[in-house]
C-alpha cells in the first residue's frame, strides 16, 4: 500500500501513544505498590517495600488466587469441551436450529454481565438449592464457562473452515477410525486454535467480577472478589496493588508460552474477543 512516509510515521506514533495510554494507569498501579501512602496519594509520599512484604504473607490473597485459578481452569475446561463440540456440529452438519444455536453461543458474552449474573443466580436458587446444592465454586465455574464457550467456539470454527477435509478423508481411507483420525489428524490441526481459545477463556474468567458476584457462594472468594472486598478497606488497598502487579507480571508467562506454542505461525489472538 502506497502510504506516504508521513502517514506511516503518524500511524506508528499513534500506536506508541495508544500503548502509552494503556500502560500509564498500570504504571501508576506499580508505583502505588511502593507508595508509602495508604490511599494511593499522588504524588507518591515515599518509597516502601512494606506492602510487598505484607502481601507476600497474606493468606487471604493466596487463597483467592488459588480459587481464581481453579475457577478459571474449570471454566476453561468446560468451554473447551462445549465450544469444540458446538464448532464441529455447526461446521460439519446442517441441522434445524443451526443459526439460533450460533446466536445462543454468542449471547452470554454479548449481554451485559449483570443480566447473565442475575439470571443464573435466580436459576440456581430455584433449581439447585432445593436439591441441597448451594452456591460455591461449582456455580462460579458454570457462570464463567457460559460466557467462555464462545471464544473457544469462534477460534475452533474459524480453524475448521481453513483446514481441508481431504486430510481427514485420506486418514479414513487409510483405515484409521474416527477416534484415530481425530487424534492424529484433526486435533493437531486445531490445536493452536484450542490453545488460543483456552488462553482467552482463562483470562476472561480470571478477571471476571460481575457474574462472579452473583454466582459465588458466600465462602468462595476469587481474586477479583478479594480485591473488591479489600479495596473497601484502606488499610488493605496498597496490598491489592501489589497483588495486581504480581498477577500482571505472572500473566506474561501464559501469554508468551501460547505465542511460542502456536507452531503454525497463526497468532493465538486471531479470532480473539
Amino acid at each position, binding site marked *: 500500500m502506497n502510504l506516504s512516509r508521513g502517514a506511516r510515521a503518524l500511524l506508528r506514533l499513534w500506536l506508541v501513544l495508544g500503548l502509552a495510554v494503556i500502560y500509564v494507569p498500570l504504571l501508576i498501579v506499580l508505583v502505588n505498590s511502593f507508595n508509602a501512602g495508604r*490511599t494511593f496519594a499522588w504524588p507518591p509520599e515515599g518509597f516502601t517495600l512494606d506492602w510487598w512484604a505484607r502481601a507476600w504473607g497474606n493468606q487471604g490473597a493466596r487463597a483467592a488466587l488459588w480459587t481464581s485459578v481453579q475457577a478459571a481452569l474449570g471454566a476453561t475446561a468446560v468451554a473447551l469441551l462445549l465450544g469444540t463440540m458446538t464448532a464441529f456440529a455447526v461446521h460439519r452438519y446442517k441441522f434445524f436450529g443451526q443459526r439460533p444455536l450460533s446466536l445462543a453461543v454468542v449471547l452470554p458474552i454479548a449481554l451485559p454481565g449483570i443480566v447473565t449474573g442475575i439470571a443464573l443466580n435466580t436459576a440456581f436458587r430455584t433449581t439447585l438449592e432445593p436439591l441441597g446444592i448451594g452456591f460455591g465454586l461449582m456455580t462460579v465455574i458454570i457462570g464463567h464457562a457460559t460466557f467462555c464457550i464462545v471464544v473457544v467456539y469462534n477460534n475452533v470454527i474459524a480453524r475448521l473452515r481453513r483446514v481441508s477435509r481431504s486430510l481427514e478423508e485420506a486418514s479414513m481411507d487409510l483405515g484409521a477410525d474416527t477416534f484415530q483420525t481425530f487424534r492424529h489428524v484433526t486435533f493437531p490441526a486445531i490445536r493452536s486454535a484450542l490453545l488460543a481459545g483456552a488462553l482467552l477463556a482463562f483470562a476472561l474468567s480470571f478477571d471476571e467480577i460481575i457474574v462472579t458476584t452473583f454466582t459465588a457462594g458466600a465462602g468462595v472468594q476469587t481474586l477479583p472478589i478479594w480485591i473488591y472486598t479489600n479495596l*473497601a478497606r484502606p488499610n*488493605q488497598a496498597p496490598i491489592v496493588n501489589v497483588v495486581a502487579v504480581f498477577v500482571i507480571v505472572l500473566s506474561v508467562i501464559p501469554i508468551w508460552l501460547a505465542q511460542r506454542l502456536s507452531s503454525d505461525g497463526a497468532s493465538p489472538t486471531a479470532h480473539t474477543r
Partner: protein
Amino acid sequence: MRRNRTLLAVAAASVLLLTAACGSSSSGSKGGTSASGFKVPDIPMQKEIGPGEGQVNLVAWAGYVEDGSTDPKLDWVTEFEKETGCQVNVKVAGSSDEMVSLMRTGQYDGVSASGDATLRLIAAGDVAPVNTSLIPNYVDVFDGLKNKPWNTVNGKTYGVPHGRGANLLMWRSDVVKPAPDSWSVVWDANSPYKGKVTAYDSPIYIADAALYLMHTKPELGIKNPYALDDKQFQAAIDLLKQQKTVVGEYWSDYLKAVQAFKSGSTVVGTAWQVLANMAQKEGAPVQTTLPKEGSTGWSDTWMISSKAKHPNCMYKWMNHIISPKVNAQVAEWFGEAPANKKSCALTSDKNHCNTFHAEDEQYFSKVWFWTTPVKDCLDGRGPKCKDYAAWTQAWTQIKG
C-alpha cells in the same frame, strides 16, 4: 464489606409487625418490649453450657472474624480455637438479606446481624433467646447497648451486642471555615463548597434529610427519621434533590471516601469516624463532629441459631468476641465503638474509645440507629408510612 452491608443492610422484611418497637431507637429507652402484634415464636433458652462440639459455623460481616489470613496481626480466632477446641468456620456475608437466608438454611450456629436483620430473624424463629448468665462478659457490655428494640423483644434478649458507630459530619479544616456544628453545611443550596460536598450512597441516607427536617421544619411533624408519611417523605426528597446540585459525588466505600477527602475532591460531607482517622493518618487535615441535630448510626448483634448444631461452641464464641481484649481488637480494626466497657483500657490506641465515644451514652442518645422503614409507621401512627421499597425507588429518582 461495609459498603454492601450498609447499602443492603436495610432491606425490608417482616419488620412491619414491629410498629413502635423500634420507634424510640436510641434515646436511652430500656425494657425493649415490643408492641402488641409482634408474635415471637417461643424458643427455649439454653440453660447451661456443656463441652464444646469441636466446631462452630458463623455468618459474619467482613472483618468481624479474622483468623490472620487478612493480616497475620489480626487474629482472634486461632486463640479461641486452641482454648475451646471449637474450630471456627466463617461465611462472610455481603448483606443482611444474605445473612437472613443463610441463617434460614439452619446450617449455621450464629450470625453477626445488623439492626434490621435481627428483628426478621427473631420474628421468624430463626434465632433463640440468649441466656446472658452463661456469658460472663455480658455484664461488661455498655448499658446503652443492652435491652434495645433491635436485640430484645418481650423482655427476652436475643443476642450479644458487638459494637456501634455514628454517621458524622466530616470536613477539611483547611477549606471549610468556620468549623461547622450543623448539618446545614451539606444541605445549603448556595453552599460555598458546591461540587465538593459528599453524601452516603444509599436509600437509607434519606433518613439524614428527614433528621435535618425534624429540626429545621418542625411543622412537618417528623418524630422518627425512619417513619415518614407521604408529605414528610416528599419534603425529604425535595431536600435531597436540592442537595444533589451541590454534591460532587456519593460515596459508598472506605477507600473512595478517604481518597476524595485526602485529594480535596471532597471537602465536607457525611462520614464515619474510622474514615476520619484514616484520612488524618494519611496527613489530610480533616475533622469530625456530631452536629447539633444529632445523626444516624449503626449497631450490630451476635445471635445464636434456634437450630444450632454446636450451641455450646456458639456460646463460647459469643463470650469470646465480646471479651475485653478481642472486642477491643475488632473495634479498632473495624473502626467502631466496642461493646465491652473493659475494652477501652485494652485498645492499642489508648484514645480509641474517646475517639469513638464508646463510653459516652449522652453522645449516642443523639444517634438514630438505622432501622428498616416499614409501612406501619415506626412511631405508631398507623399504616401510612413509606416502606423501604419506596425509599429505594426514591433514591434512584434523587440521583436522577
